[in-house]
Structures are given as C-alpha cells and as structure tokens.
C-alpha cells in the first residue's frame, strides 16, 4: 500500500489504493458456495520502516485498503455470494482496532484522512448488506476492542464467543482520551438502539463487556461457545444468504487494475486527467464522457465488464479522490470539467435505469453513489465548470450538483456560436445517487421546495442552456464568454486565499442540508468531535504516553 514513488523532484512516500487479493498481506477471502469469509490475519511486521508493529490484529491504513478492496471485489467478482462473515484468523484474538502507536505518529491531516477512509469502508460494508444482497455478519472469536468492535458493528449480525474471557469494548475514552473513531458511538445508539445509560457505562469501561451482558444490552446478537462459533456462524450466514436470493444469471465481473500514470503535475487515467496547478492549489479534473455506442445492450455491457463507462469512471474517480486526499493535501480546490457526447451519456443512464434490477447494473449504480459520496465528504472546494464541449448530463451532471459552486458558460457572444453549452438531468439524478443524508443532491439543493423539484423532474432529459439552468437554480452562475475567464480566475484565486480549515468546515456544513442518518451523523458529528479532540492537548498527551507506562496529565477544564 505504501510504495516509494521516485520522481525528479524528490523521493516521496505515496499512498496507493489499488490492490488485489493476490497482494493481500492481512486479509484472506474464502468462498464456499454462497458464503464468503473475510479472515483478518494482520501481518505484524508488514513494513518495518513504519516504526510500529500491528499487534493483536490491530490495523493501519494498509489493512483497511485491503478490506475495502475485498468488499468491493465480493460485490462485483462474486455475485453468487449472499453472506459475508468477518472474523479473525488469529487464535483468541479478534482485533484491537486501529493501531495506537500508528495514530500517535500520524499528523493531524493523516489522522483525519485515515478515519474518514475507514469510515467510508464500514459504510460500504453496510451498503452491501442493505442494498447489494450481501449480508455481512461478524464472528468475534477473541477480544474486540475499539475499531475491532466497531468493525463488528458495521455488520448486521454479531456473534460473540462466550468463553468467560472474551470481551468487546470501546475503551477510547478511558484509555486514550479520544473517541471510537469509526462510528462506534453512533451505531451503538442509532443502529443497535443500546440504551444511552448502558452505552455510557460501556464506553467508559476499558475492559468492556462479556457474554451474557453483551447480549442483554444488545451489543451483540448471539453468543456461541468456543467450539460452536464457526459452525454456528456458518449456518447463520447460510440462512442470510438464502434470504437474499440474488438473481444471478452470470459470473462475476473481474475488476481489472486501473491504468494510472502519475507525473509531477498530471495524473492520467483512461477517462480522467487531473492537472495540478500548485500556485493556485487547484486540481482540474478533465473527465471524458462515454463514446457513442450503437448496440448498447446488457449483453454488450457484460462483455466489456469493468470497461463499461460508468464503472470505469467510478473506479477511476474513486482512486483519484483518494489519491488527491492523501497525497496532495495542499491542493485545496478541485475543478470539475467534462467532455463528451450528451446522447451517449443519456443512453447509458437510460439502459442502467431500465435494468436497475440486474445485479451488475445495480452494483454499478451503487458504486457511483458511493463514489459521489466520497466526493461530498472530501475536504476540498469543488467547483464545476460547464463549457461548450462539456458533457454534464445525467451521471456526469451529478458532479455539478455535488460542487460547491458551478459556473456555466452563457452562449458565446462572438465565437463558437454553433457549439452549445448544455446541462441535462436524467432519471439517475432523482434518487439513485443519494447523499449521506439519504436525499438526492437535487433534493438537498432545493430543501423545502418540493414543487420546484417536481418541476425540474418534468424537464428531465432536456438539454438546458445556461440561462435556463441558472434560473432553475441548477448552476450557480452563468457568465458569458467575455466574463468567463476572469470570473473563473477570480473565483479560484479567492478560494485559494481563504483559510483551508474554515473552508472545510463551512463546506461540510453547507453541503449536507436536511435530515441526518447514521452515516451523516458519523461524518458530521462523530468525526467533527473526534477531529476537535485530536487538536486538543489532552488527546495528544494521552496518545503519546500510551504504552509508555506514564500517566497523562490532563487539562481539567471542561470546554
């Protein structure tokens, strides 16, 4: 996961998110019929240069990148799987959660990025259970604390070994002076409906809770004896798998490696090019829309598999987002541009919605949904530019809706009069690509204005010109060609001049209007508090003294 990238400027450590099962160091996928098992077996000394050992199945980013890949591959490559067991391959150890030494070493930026990514992975697990017909369950075969138990919480069914010793715990507050960072608090209350006073006790007791009490308090769903754990879990998994009853008519689709080339200021994929301007601190995404295909059919889509435009696009965009988040933290503004054929994009959206129940199409749309969510919760300013060659239709229009500000060129006054600049919504923009608040971006954009949303729905499929799109509120501004360059330049320069912290905080507040969900609470409440804690002296002294035997001295003021 961590690889050295040599470039002419310097030797820099770059984080790479692409992996595949043959490269896994910490996970193993076993598939038996319609049940898959993800076995966690962390290689303690995977990378001796890192300065920490991953004891007790504790994890770092590398472990989580593999988990994310495994979940993703099970969806696409193993559609026959209807249930997935997460368990540990180590004897009498489930997982101690995120490695504390590792956390102590990370900078604030790295900590925040790490937590965000691990949260996204757990949410993707829940997405698979709820929407893909691959129900996750967890067999806790030994102590599961912190992120270990939180991983279990991300599944739909937790079976705990009842051996008089194994405990589940969220010891962050008493032991580390931070919060459980991967949704533990939220899921205990909102998903498992554990009573708040019991949850309070549970979260302040470092040794955690065992057997009977864990079951009584609904912290787990089932208990098993040591000898029965495996068989009990399997039979439970089988019944989940049967209930799911996915209509699979074909083999899985292999997720081939992504083509990516990284240069100093240019990252290129097949469909996406990203140009970095280090003075303005912008990354301009140039996204190539789909080509026109004459014989677009489900059969054809299967035959091209992961090269099918929406899937290829989602995978590349996903990788690009993660790459920029982790490896280019100073590039604060992402400028989204696109090019391509509107009709082709519309045709693809159409065939996808028509075949929404087809497992592969369904997975592609879910994948798009998750990728756009990644965009939403990226701490970068998003600016969409809609220009004459753009292809902001349907799936690609969603990018403009995700942006904090969008600019659309009003018809060129003197040049390019024959080339129209248009923006077009398709069915996919109305509910298929929901945000973490559970609403579509259109609904989030026009909160409290259902009538307007209905009106926009009616003109779905129409190629809108700038003034129309501006009047409907679908784009922010529609400058003409005379003003265009300057407006954009000034907007980008102004953005670059503001405090990055204030921008991240402001954008996170403005992007997610409307209701809260477990997911939105994790990012808006849990992560925000956690990030605040990370900046406070009490957490720092605590994380640094962890494992040294020294007791941290707290600033006793309640803030």
């Amino acid at each position, binding site marked *: 996961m961590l690889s050295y990238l040599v470039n002419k400027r310097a030797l820099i450590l770059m984080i790479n998110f692409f992996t595949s099962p043959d490269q896994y160091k910490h996970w193993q996928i076993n598939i038996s019929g319609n049940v898959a098992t993800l076995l966690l077996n962390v290689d303690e000394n995977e990378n001796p240069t890192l300065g920490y050992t991953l004891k007790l199945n504790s994890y770092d980013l590398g472990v989580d990148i593999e988990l994310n890949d495994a979940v993703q591959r099970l969806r696409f490559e193993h559609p026959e799987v209807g249930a997935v067991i997460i368990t540990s391959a180590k004897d009498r150890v489930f997982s101690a959660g995120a490695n504390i030494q590792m956390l102590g070493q990370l900078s604030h930026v790295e900590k925040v990025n790490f937590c965000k990514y691990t949260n996204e992975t757990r949410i993707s697990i829940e997405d698979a259970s709820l929407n893909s017909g691959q129900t996750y369950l967890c067999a806790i075969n030994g102590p599961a604390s912190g992120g270990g138990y939180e991983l279990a919480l991300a599944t739909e069914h937790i079976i705990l070994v009842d051996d008089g010793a194994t405990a589940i715990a969220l010891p962050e507050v008493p032991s580390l002076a931070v919060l459980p960072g991967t949704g533990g608090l939220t899921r205990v209350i909102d998903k498992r409906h554990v009573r708040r006073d019991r949850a309070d006790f549970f979260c302040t007791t470092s040794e955690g809770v065992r057997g009977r009490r864990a079951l009584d308090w609904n912290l787990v769903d089932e208990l098993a004896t040591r000898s029965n754990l495996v068989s009990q879990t399997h039979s439970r998994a089988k019944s989940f798998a049967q209930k799911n009853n996915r209509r699979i008519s074909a083999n899985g689709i292999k997720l081939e490696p992504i083509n990516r080339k990284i240069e100093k200021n240019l990252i290129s994929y097949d469909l996406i090019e990203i140009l970095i301007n280090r003075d303005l601190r912008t990354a301009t995404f140039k996204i190539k829309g789909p080509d026109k295909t004459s014989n677009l059919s489900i059969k054809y889509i299967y035959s091209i598999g992961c090269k099918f435009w929406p899937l290829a696009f989602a995978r590349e965009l996903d990788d690009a987002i993660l790459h920029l988040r982790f490896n280019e933290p100073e590039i604060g503004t992402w400028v989204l541009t696109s090019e391509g054929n509107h009709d082709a994009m519309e045709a693809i959206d159409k065939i996808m919605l028509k075949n929404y129940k087809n497992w592969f199409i369904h997975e592609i749309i879910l994948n798009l949904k998750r990728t756009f969510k990644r965009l939403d919760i990226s701490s970068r300013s998003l600016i969409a530019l809609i220009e004459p060659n753009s292809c902001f239709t349907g799936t690609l229009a969603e990018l403009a809706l995700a942006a904090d500000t969008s600019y659309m060129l009003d018809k060129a*006054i*003197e040049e390019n009069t024959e080339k129209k600049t248009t923006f077009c919504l398709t069915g996919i923009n109305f509910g298929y690509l929901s945000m973490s608040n559970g609403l579509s971006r259109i609904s989030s954009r026009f909160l409290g204005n259902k009538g307007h949303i209905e009106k926009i729905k009616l003109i779905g499929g129409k190629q809108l010109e700038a003034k129309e799109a501006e009047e409907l509120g679908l784009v922010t501004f529609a400058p003409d060609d*005379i003003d265009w360059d*300057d407006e954009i*330049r000034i907007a980008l*320069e*102004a953005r670059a*001049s503001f405090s990055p912290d204030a921008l991240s905080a402001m954008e996170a507040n403005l992007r997610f209007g409307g209701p809260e969900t477990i997911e939105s609470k994790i990012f808006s409440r849990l992560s925000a508090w956690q990030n605040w804690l990370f900046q406070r002296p009490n957490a720092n002294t605590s994380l640094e003294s962890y494992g040294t035997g020294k007791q941290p001295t707290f600033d006793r003021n309640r803030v």
Partner: protein
Amino acid sequence: MNINYNETIPNNVNLSDDRRLLRALEQWQPAYINWWKELGPDQTQNFEVYLRTAISVDAKGWAHFGHVRMPEYRWGIFLSPAEKDRRIGFGHHKGESTWTEVPGEYRTELRRLIVTQGDTEPASVEQQRHLSKTCPSLYDLRNLFQVNVEEGRHLWAMVYLLQAYFGRDGREEADEMLSRHAGDPNKPRILEAFNEQTDDWLSFFMFTYFQDRDGKFQLAALSESAFEPLSRTCRFMLTEEAHHMFVGETGIMRIIQRTCELMREYDTDKISLMGGIDLNIIQKWINFHYSICLDLFGSERSTNAANYYSMGLKGRYQENKINDDHLLTDSYVSLPKIEEDEIRNEETPALTAINMKLREDYAKDSQRGLDRFNKIIESYCIDTKLTLPHPAFNRNIGVFKDVKASPSGKIIDATTWNKQRDQWLPSSADYELVKSLMVQVIEPGKMAGWIAPPKRGIHGLPIDYEYVLFH
C-alpha cells in the same frame, strides 16, 4: 443606434480591442447620459460651455478647449502612462511586481475601495446641480461646469475599472453608482459629506477647497496601489483634481478680497449689509466643511485601512517619500483618545493609524491655503485670522464623535455646545443671509457684489469672454 465608442470616447486604453469593456460601455453609457440630464446641472442642456476636454494624457492633449453642450461632452477614459517595471511599494507584497489584474483574494476589498471613491464623483455633481441659477459670473459658471464634467469623467474612470476588471459584480456596481443619489433618503450616497446640499456659492468654493482636497489625498493614496490600473487611473485624475482646488482656493480668496475691500470702504466688519460676506461667516463655513471632511478619512484607528495597506491596495500620501520600512508591522504612533473628558495620546500600532496619517497630511495641506487667505486679510491691515478648527470639533466619526468640543479643541458639555453652536457653525440665519446674496450674474465680465473678479480669464482669454452661451 450604432455608436463608434472608440471615436466618441477618447481613451488611451485600446477601447476598440476590448470587447468586454465595449459591451459594458454600450450598456452603461446611455444610463449615464440619462443620469446627467436628470441629475446633472439643472436646465443647462442647451448651454454651450467653454470647456477643457481631455483627449489624451500628454500636456497638449488634456488642455483642449472649445464650446460644447455638456451632454455631448466627450467623457474619456485615461490612464497615466505606465511606469516601467513598477514595483509594489509597501505592505507584505512590497518589492513584487505590480498587478495588472485583480488578484482574486483582494477582489472584494479593491472593489469596495473603487466603489467608495467612485460614488463621491457623481455625488458632487448632484449636490451642485442648482448652482447655475445663482452664479456670480459667467467665468464662475464656466468653472462650475468644468468641475462638474470632470467629476463626471472621474466617475467614468472608476466605472472603467469596475467594468474592465470586476466582471458582472463590477457592472452591477457601475449601475448602482447612478442609482444612489446625494441626499436621497432611500438610496443616499455612501459617504455622509456627499449627502449635504451645496446650495450657495460660498459652499461650492468651500466644497472644491475642502472636499476636493480630500479627493486629492484619497486619489494620491490609491495611486500608490499595487493594482496597476487603479494606480494609473488615479494618477491622471489627480491632474484634474488640482484644477478643482484651484477653483475653490481662488474663489475663497476673491470673496475674502471683496470682503476686505468692503470692510475698508465702509470701515466696519458687518459688511453683509453692504452685500458682502462677513469674515465670521466665512470662518463658520470653514468650520463646517473642514470638520465634515475630516470624517471622510474614517476612524483614526482602522483595521480596514490597515488591511488595505498590508494587502498593498491603498498606500499613504507620497509613500515613496516617507522614510520608513513601508511595512509598519513594528512601528507605533501616538493617537488621540478621550479620557476623563480630556484629549490624551496613546501609542497605537502605526498600521492601524493609516487613516490618521493621511488626515494629518490633509490638514497640513489645508492650512497652506488658510495662510494665503490670511495674507490677503493682513494686506488690508485687518486684525482677523481665519483658522482650521481642532479635529475634535463637530465630528461624527472616530474618537471625537461622542464628545462636544469647541473649535479650539476644548471639550465642553452639550448645553454649552448648544448655546454656542451658532457662533461656530452656519446657522439657518446665516444660510438665509448668504442665500440672499446669491443672485445670478451672467453679463460677460460682470461680478456679483460679494466677490472680486479673478486675476485672469480661462486659457488666456479675457475675463469678459462669453464663457457660456445661452440658447
């Protein structure tokens, strides 16, 4: 109607090549002409006025004289020639190359500065629109109109910057310049001094002496700007502003001269009965105009001004002649504060005292004219001196706004102030009296009884030349 703007608008900014600007002007120019007809000099549209029109920036080009109808005046867009390789002279960009484009991070601040400056230009035209009916001579009427068209041109200069460099926001601001009006209770001009009426010619001369001098200092400070187009625009405007102050200064001098003549002739200081303006009335007008002009400099302590300075947007008067680091991050100056009803001093970071520095330079410059006024009085052996009131007198902005002070700077209570106010500031009786003297004189060469003739005419022409032709 097809207008060749490059021909009708004299300019040195390559107007014909600038599509954006051309379009913006096409939209703005008709609105401007409407504004001029509605709120410019009242009922003067058919007058032919002997005006100077700038047709280029060199010495020859901006002294081009001829009779024109004012709505047909060729308002042009001129920037002083660029200095080669000009560097930013102050603030945290000091030493870097100046900017030819608006930096996005300072867009809002620059726009606010330009709008505030620009708003004063049409305001004064509006304030002075009825003066033509009471002009003391054709010579003065012509000068009034000259000042008016040049204020109009200064509006063009600021509008040019807004339209050329600030996109749609700039165009909206340019329109707003014509929708705010001096004294309009719903949409007043931005700065209070520009909502006062200028109903009499004594006020007009005071205005051109004091308010236009504020303009000079503001423009000088803006001409230091790192934003090259603003700097060059303001440098050219300064050459025109000098003429306005000339009108003000010589106007006041001619009034004083006439007053002194009458005082000598009748051997009394109550010459208002003889159709002159008493020196104490002149002093009250000075007190009023000077004190409201000090407000134009803003608060003595200003973080806005400090930011503008640090950002390199607005400097000090003649920045490069000041011998310091031009960063001001570590220097302190003494600023007044009120403590126990006394004016005391307090050390303050120099950066936050930028307004005060400009105001002090303004005060010195204003005093120079006062000295010349006093020389005239002295030459008539009259034992009176005109003075500038203390900065604490009659203030609405800054540290002195909450106290009452006499013109000499003594803090007094409200009762005392109310009792003495009419001795220091124009009373309604004073306004009535001055107004009663304002009777239109338009016979070539003739002067109203309260003002002496000028030393010479315009552009080498005799004083009795027909500077304005009525039709």
